[in-house]
Structure formats: structure tokens, C-alpha cells
């Protein structure tokens, strides 16, 4: 057989029995854990940050160009940088990164990874154009209608790039993940939430007061709205978490996610519209969002015995 001489992927633990009662196979996990670790949590976060920033900027600019165009022109290059870092993580996570382009040899609608790859590839083109033309506009070369055309063209693949990730991580046979029916709903909603927060901080940073005022309200509304898919996702994952963690551990992590991801950002945003407060809100939001993704990615890697014994 070409190219393999080691017994298995490091992620797959040898299912040795821990006690005499574990002899046999009835208590052993049937499925194998894919080599998707913390990098995937960062990938899911950056994917949401990039696509959300683009979508928030595009939607705002198209509805109120007079208010949002200057901020959007900075948001598109920022979204492109975030997307490039995300794509780098996606490629590095492959078993054979030099074969990343093999994903583009076919299009399979029933493979979320294939749909995502094509969405990201197509999305990168108008995003690059919008970002490039935004930078050119700052340098005095204004191709406004072409830039707007690129923004419009990026809407659908951008949305697809945000929407596929949750389906990819829930349409599989892994314990816990296979029950996460609302992961996609949460991740896509969270992408828009993070994008609005990023756009808000950019507006405050650039001194665009009216844009910042509007986005403060929008961000607060989206923070509350995001609690719905988050709650539904947690309800989906509750049986898996109950197997892995004690009730106290579940409450601790849940409280941390709620406080860092919703309560503190909301409080900071409503308390003061200053840059420092808004930046703090963004940092807390990103931490909370990362934590949700990290806890999720960890589920199939977690052994109930290890967690319950507190190791």
C-alpha cells in the first residue's frame, strides 16, 4: 500500500479495556475520531469573522451607502486578510496539504466540504476584487460601480461560505456532533454577529459616528438574537455533555460562554460607545464564540472517564 506504514492516525486511541468489565466491544466507541483538533475551532472562528464582516459590510453599504461606504471600503480588505488566514488553516489541516486543489476536481452537492470549498473559492474572487478596488479607490483610482458589482457578486457565495461549516461539522457519525442539528444555525448567525461587531469597531476606529450609532443598536439586537440558536444548540448537545461532564462542569462552561459571549459584550456596548468599550466587547465576543467552537470540536475527542475523574 502506498504511503502508509504506521498503525493509525494519532487521533485514534487504541481501545484497550480499562477494567475487566470492559473486555469485549460493547462499551467501546464504534466510530473513529477524525484528526480535527483546535485548528478547526480557529478555522470555524475565522470563517465566521471573515464572511460575517463581508456580509455585514455589504448589507449595510447596499442599504445605506452614504453612511457605510467609507467603513465598508476598509472592511473588505480586512475580511480578505481574515479569509486568507482561514484558508491557510484549512489547507494545513489536510493530511496532504499539497493536494488541497484536489477538492476542485469535482463538485459534489451532497458533500458539505465540497460545497464549502467551492463557495470559498468563488467567494474569494469577488472579495479580492472588492478589497482591491477599495484600496485603489483610496489611492484615487475609483471604479465604484465595478466595486459594487463585486460586492453584489460576493453576497451569495459569502453566505454559502458561512453556512456550510455548521453542516459539515454536524452531518457525520461522531458522537455528539451527529446530534447538533442547530450548529449550522448558530454558526451562520454567529458569523453575522461577529461581522457586525467588527464593523462597529472599525466605524468607531475611523470616527464614523453615525455608522457606529446604528451598528451599536444592530449589534445589541444580534447579540440577543444569537441566544436562540445557541440555546437550541446546547439543547442538542446536552445528552452528549451529560455523558462527558459533571453537572457542575456544564454549568461552569455554560456560564462562561454566556457571560463572555453575550452578557459582557452587551453590557459594554450599552454602557458606553467609546472605542475602548466597543473593542472590549469585540474581544469578549470573540472569546465566547471561540469557546463555543472549541467545546464543540472537543466532544468526540473527550473520554468520559478522563473528564469525570478530573484528569
Amino acid at each position: 500500500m502506498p504511503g502508509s506504514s504506521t498503525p493509525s492516525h494519532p487521533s485514534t486511541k487504541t481501545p484497550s479495556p480499562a477494567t475487566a468489565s470492559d473486555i469485549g466491544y460493547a462499551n467501546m466507541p464504534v466510530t473513529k475520531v477524525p484528526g480535527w483538533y483546535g485548528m478547526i475551532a480557529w478555522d470555524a472562528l475565522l470563517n465566521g469573522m471573515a464572511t460575517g464582516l463581508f456580509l455585514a459590510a455589504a448589507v449595510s453599504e447596499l442599504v445605506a451607502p452614504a453612511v457605510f461606504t467609507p467603513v465598508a471600503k476598509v472592511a473588505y480588505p480586512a475580511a480578505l486578510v481574515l479569509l486568507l488566514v482561514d484558508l491557510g488553516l484549512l489547507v494545513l489541516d489536510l493530511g496532504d496539504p499539497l493536494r488541497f486543489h484536489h477538492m476542485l476536481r469535482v463538485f459534489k452537492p451532497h458533500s458539505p466540504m465540497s460545497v464549502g470549498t467551492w463557495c470559498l473559492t468563488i467567494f474569494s474572487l469577488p472579495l479580492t476584487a472588492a478589497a482591491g478596488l477599495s484600496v485603489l479607490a483610496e489611492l484615487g483610482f475609483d471604479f465604484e460601480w465595478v466595486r459594487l458589482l463585486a460586492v453584489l457578486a460576493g453576497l451569495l457565495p459569502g453566505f454559502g461560505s458561512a453556512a456550510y461549516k455548521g453542516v459539515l461539522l454536524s452531518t457525520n457519525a461522531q458522537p455528539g456532533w451527529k446530534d447538533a442539528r442547530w450548529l449550522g444555525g448558530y454558526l451562520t448567525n454567529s458569523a453575522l454577529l461577529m461581522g457586525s461587531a467588527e464593523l462597529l469597531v472599525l466605524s468607531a476606529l475611523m470616527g464614523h459616528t453615525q455608522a457606529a450609532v446604528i451598528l451599536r443598536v444592530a449589534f445589541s439586537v444580534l447579540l440577543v438574537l444569537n441566544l436562540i440558536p445557541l440555546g437550541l444548540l446546547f439543547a442538542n448537545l446536552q445528552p452528549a455533555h451529560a455523558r462527558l461532564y459533571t453537572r457542575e462542569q456544564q454549568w461552569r462552561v455554560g456560564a462562561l460562554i454566556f457571560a463572555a459571549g453575550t452578557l459582557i459584550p452587551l453590557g459594554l456596548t450599552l454602557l458606553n460607545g467609546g472605542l475602548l468599550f466597543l473593542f472590549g466587547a469585540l474581544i469578549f465576543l470573540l472569546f465566547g464564540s471561540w469557546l463555543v467552537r472549541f467545546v464543540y470540536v472537543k466532544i468526540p475527542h473527550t473520554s468520559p472517564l478522563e473528564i469525570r475523574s478530573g484528569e
Partner: protein
Amino acid sequence: MASREKELSALAQTSDPPRGLLAQLAGRLIYPFLHGKPPEPRPATGFYTDTTVCIGCKACEVACKQWNQLPSDGFNWSGNSYDNTTELSATSWRHVKFIEQFSDGSLGALDPLAAVPQESILNRWLMMSDHCKHCLAAPCHQACPTGAIIHNEFQNVYIQADICNGCSCCVASCPFGVITRSSMGGHSHKCTLCYDRQRDGLEPACAKACPTQSIHFGPVDELREMARKRVEELHRRGVPQAYLYGDTSSQTYSELHSFYLLVDRPSVYGLPDSPFNPWLHMMGDYTRSIAGGLAAIAALLLVVFLMRS
């Protein structure tokens, strides 16, 4: 010169390997996009494994390793009966499982073909040679974004190792825990159902090596017929718990082209009791994903629209 070398040298070269850095790079970029002509479909083949006659000799494991040139996995005492292979992996495409069912302190004689067993007086060995199930609607095949996993002309699930890029979607989606990504090459591997041997009209190495005919190979329809007759025979001989696993489709999973005759619950053998194809949820998951995003966009639009002036 060995005879094998003579044979190889006599084969016609289809193309020379690219020379030079640019040529190699171009070859590497273009190669995966060159789709060959698919071979003509042949009758679907598969395995029928009768676990009641398996003696746990592991000849199938050895034959698989030998024919497919799979490296050793090292040796570790697992503590789980005679099973030191422990699992299917990128380098173990056959795995003989040993299940010891002995009641503590029982004086009952070993009786593998006992009538309806009571857990308390059960005294028997169960052995089973496990492998890829070659599902008709295989989740790994559906998940693969590169097209590396295909159904070949024999309707077997086959991984094209030169196309796989190690994304692990297949690993995540297999409900039987069959596919594994190798940490050496970074690609996924599993049983090929000896595709190369089949093309030459030979049966797979494991079936050839099996000394008790526990592993049957052939056209799936014939295997099903044979398996059903065997179940009826076992029922007549006082083994009413014998049944076939995976020979027909269920509401949540397709039929398996490699199916088993079992005499206990599937989970006892390390098989899922009710395998579920994750793709049954896909459309619903996409709908919720899109709804979550659209709700956020609608909220953002509303606020921006109301506050823009």
C-alpha cells in the same frame, strides 16, 4: 532477473514521469483533473461473513497484510482476549474480534450452538472477522469532497489513494469506524475488497485464506441467498438467535455489500445496533443554517434601514 521483474519490464509505459521542477509542478496540478474512462459495470460483489464458523485463526488478517503489503502494527497486549490487533486501521484492513461470554462460576459446558442463551448461563466464544462494510449508500463516499472515494465497477467502495488529500471527512462520517487516515502518508485507507485480485478474476486474499469458509466472497445476490439458507439451517438446528446483519436496508441505512451472520446483539460485536446515515439530516441542517443567517441579516437590515436617516 526474477520472473516478476521480467513481467514488469514487459508492460507498456503509458507516459514518462515529468522531469524538471516546473514539469513536476504542472503535472501535480493537472494530474488530478484528468478523469479516466470508468470501466463497464460488473455484477456487485461482496462478503458474507458467517461468524458461527469463525475459529479466530487470523489467517484473513495475515493474508490481507501479505497481499496488500501492509506493514506491521507492532505488538501490544490489549488485555482484550486474543485480540491484539484492537481495531481496523490504515494498516489493518481485517480485524478478528474475540468475545468471551462466560458466566462467573458456571459449570456449564462450552456450547456455541446452545438454544436461546440466558446471559447468566452463557458459556461461549464469539469470533468475527471485521472489515469495511462496502455500504450501498456509503457515508464516506457521500462525504468525500475530492471524488477519491468511488464505487468501482464491482460496486465496492474504493479509495483512490492518488486522489485522497486526507481531509478526514470520510473518517468522521463512517458509522462503523472503518476508515482511518494514515499519519505517514496523510491519506485515508481501508479494505479495497482486493480490487486488483478481482480484476484478475481472483477472490480476495482473506476469503481465499479462510480455512472454515467463514468468509464467503461472490456476487451479493448469491451471497444473500446462501446466508438466508444458513440462517434457516441454524434455526432448524436449535440456534434461533442467528440472524443476518446488513443484508437488507433499514429506514436509516442502506444494505451492506459485506454483511454478517450474528448470534448476539450487534453491539456485542462492536457494530452499531442501528446504523444511521448522517446524510439523512443534511437538508434539515442546511435549512437551519440558512435560516440562522437570514434571521441575522434581516435584523441587521431592519436596524440599518430604520436608523439610516
